[in-house]
């Protein structure tokens, strides 16, 4: 049982940190523009595909560096020439714009790369087990993913809270006019934040591509869960996004690892149903089966009991 617990924790951490890299960009962009970027997961997918193409010619490491840069530049261009123009028509227009963009990117990916799964592999350098515990290996690549994610979280936190740029960004988020009056170029700051946010999604894509497989549906699979995280963590809160990401990663991982289900609950309550009962599907439901919907359940609970999210500061 202990081995399952340890590995479930590690797996949860890997998933959680990966989700955080997506959620951090999304939540930054939200606090800046007040709009949820529906195309955020699509930038994650673009990151994986760019890295795949680059890795074919120059290897994985070149892809790790350049793919996020390309994605970031693309993101900045989208903000500069797309979102900024749509902005004057209000939030709904922005929302619809990003929604459409998500479809556009998915179709473009299929058009250029085709619909089949791409053979995007992790680098040979990391192709060894980091450690073996109870006969189960933990791949070095996953350790590397944890390392990169934590490094990014710490440096992002440091830049935002300690550096001069971070202070200007924070000020621009809450008091854009004042910052503008002080002589700072606020639109440029916004474009930069959008670019960095999408680049972070790109990094997540580069690293997740080899593990979670690179295919045109990868954005859809991750898209909804990232929104759940941002809302649970509190819209616009970086620390909240971090906690929510880890929470959801672990929650799903533990749920899959457990063997509990309705039958156990019924046993405790001493109730028994025959297999012919019309609701037999409900009585035989197990926790692993419903693991993927647990985050959404958590979302509902958070919205009921703490509508601002775990760390949200927005007041009604």
């Amino acid at each position, binding site marked *: 049982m202990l081995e399952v617990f340890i590995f479930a924790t590690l*797996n949860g951490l890997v998933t959680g940190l990966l989700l955080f890299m997506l959620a951090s960009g999304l939540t930054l962009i939200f606090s800046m523009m007040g709009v949820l970027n529906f195309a955020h997961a699509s930038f994650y997918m673009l990151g994986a595909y760019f890295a795949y193409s680059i890795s074919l010619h120059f290897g994985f490491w070149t892809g790790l560096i350049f793919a996020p840069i390309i994605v970031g530049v693309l993101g900045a261009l989208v903000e500069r020439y797309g979102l900024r123009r749509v902005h004057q028509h209000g939030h709904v227009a922005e929302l619809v714009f990003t929604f459409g963009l998500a479809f556009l990117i998915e179709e473009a990916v299929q058009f250029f790369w085709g*619909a089949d799964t791409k053979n995007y592999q992790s680098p040979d350098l990391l192709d060894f087990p980091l450690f073996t515990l109870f006969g189960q290996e933990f791949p070095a690549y996953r350790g590397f993913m944890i390392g990169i994610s934590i490094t990014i979280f710490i440096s992002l936190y440091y830049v935002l809270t300690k550096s001069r740029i971070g202070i200007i960004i924070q000020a621009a988020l809450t008091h854009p006019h004042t910052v503008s009056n002080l002589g700072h170029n606020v639109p440029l700051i916004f474009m930069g934040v959008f670019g960095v946010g999408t680049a972070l999604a790109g990094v997540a894509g580069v690293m997740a591509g080899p593990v979670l497989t690179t295919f045109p549906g990868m954005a859809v699979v991750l898209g909804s869960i990232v929104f759940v995280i941002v809302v649970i963590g509190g819209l616009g809160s970086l620390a909240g996004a971090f906690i929510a990401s880890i929470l959801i990663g672990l929650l799903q991982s533990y749920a899959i690892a457990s063997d509990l289900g309705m039958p156990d609950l019924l046993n405790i309550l001493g109730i028994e149903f025959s297999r012919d009962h019309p609701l037999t599907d409900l009585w035989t439901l197990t926790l692993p089966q419903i693991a993927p919907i647990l985050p959404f359940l958590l979302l509902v609970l958070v919205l009921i009991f703490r509508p601002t999210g775990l760390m949200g500061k927005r007041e009604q």
Partner: protein
Amino acid sequence: MLSADDNNSKNYRENKKLAMRTPQIFRYFVLSILLVFSSYTLSQEPVRIAFMDPLTGAFASIGNSGLKQLQFAADYLYNSKGGILGGRMIEIVPLDNKQSPTESQLQFRRAVSGGIQYIFQGNGSAVANALNDAINRHNRRNPGQEVMQVNYSAVDPILTEENCSFWHFRWDAHANMKLNILTDYIAANEGINSVYIIGQDYSFGQVVSDTSIELLRQKRPDIKIAGNEFHPIGQVKDFTPYVTKIVASGADAVITGNYGADMVSLARSIIDNGLDIPIYTFYAAYDGITATLGEDGKDRIRLIHNETSNPIPTEQRKEFYRAFKAANPNNDVTQPRITNALMMIVQAMEETQSTDPYDVGLALEDMRFTTIGGDEVWMRGEDHQVFQSLHISVHTDEGVEFDADNSGFGLYTEYSVPLEETIVPVNECRMRRPRR
């Protein structure tokens, strides 16, 4: 006749409008419009056949690959040789059902309004069941305009058992037939003492799990079922947590019916986590899967399927493969049964000199047919289930003349079962035969 034609062209315009949504479908439409025009100038109206499978979304790669195979088979075998029924071309109309039963109903209405009477569909038994319902209802209400369901890959047994229908024909062995052979193979392997079953949480996955447990209990009562897991279809990001459970359970082998992205991710996780046990599957090859598994999957992944991939017994089928590869360098002939279905339907059309699904259906019943691979195929009349030899192949790079995904790796057949031994009795099928 004239008014019907007017109607057709109007529907055609509407169809065209709908298809503009995605560039890919648009491209196929331009192609099919060209085809229509060329055949009009040549002689008569084409025989239109719909291909309804996911062309976008998580399972798009399988759908698109199947579409290319059907398109190629029609062009290579018939259209380039002057068509069928004395000069009529075959026109393949792609319809994207996004692997959703609801979307399939919509696409079915489109097909019907376009005057299409043959629908190829294979991915997803849930979709196949929904389509089966829709077609039966339509055929009951519109005698004379019936539609035939050409099921080339949906393997839920119910389609030829409880829900069997005169209008449904299946060209793939159903899950119980395949599992019967697969469990024989597993039972014969003395080294396997416990198996872990994992599958997608819907009708097909449930059937694979229930039947495997049942059959293994009969054949090798000593084999322990170490785990029986379901996961939501197309939703799992990372299979590592599942693999952790498999390792902890101490299983000697894994059985799964997963396909598409769910299959790649599962196999990758098993390999990445250093779990070195055989994986028995239905669909773990082609469309990027073989390339992704590569060297790591060698000699560990086995498939049960019909029509061998290596060695290929006849020169004629080798020719077909090479020509397909020349036309589609990035795809493979992954499902020879698509070609078999088309060839048998065309033969039935030629025999009856008719494209009416009723006549064609009668001619298909109990048809015995030899495929271009030299394999004998029998379409049983009572439940419209096809029978042909079944094979278990291994993922390897040795002896592979025709590889998959241009990776050097492919499938090599290790174990074959002749047609007679794959036959299962007719089960619970009380077919309502249409009266004419």
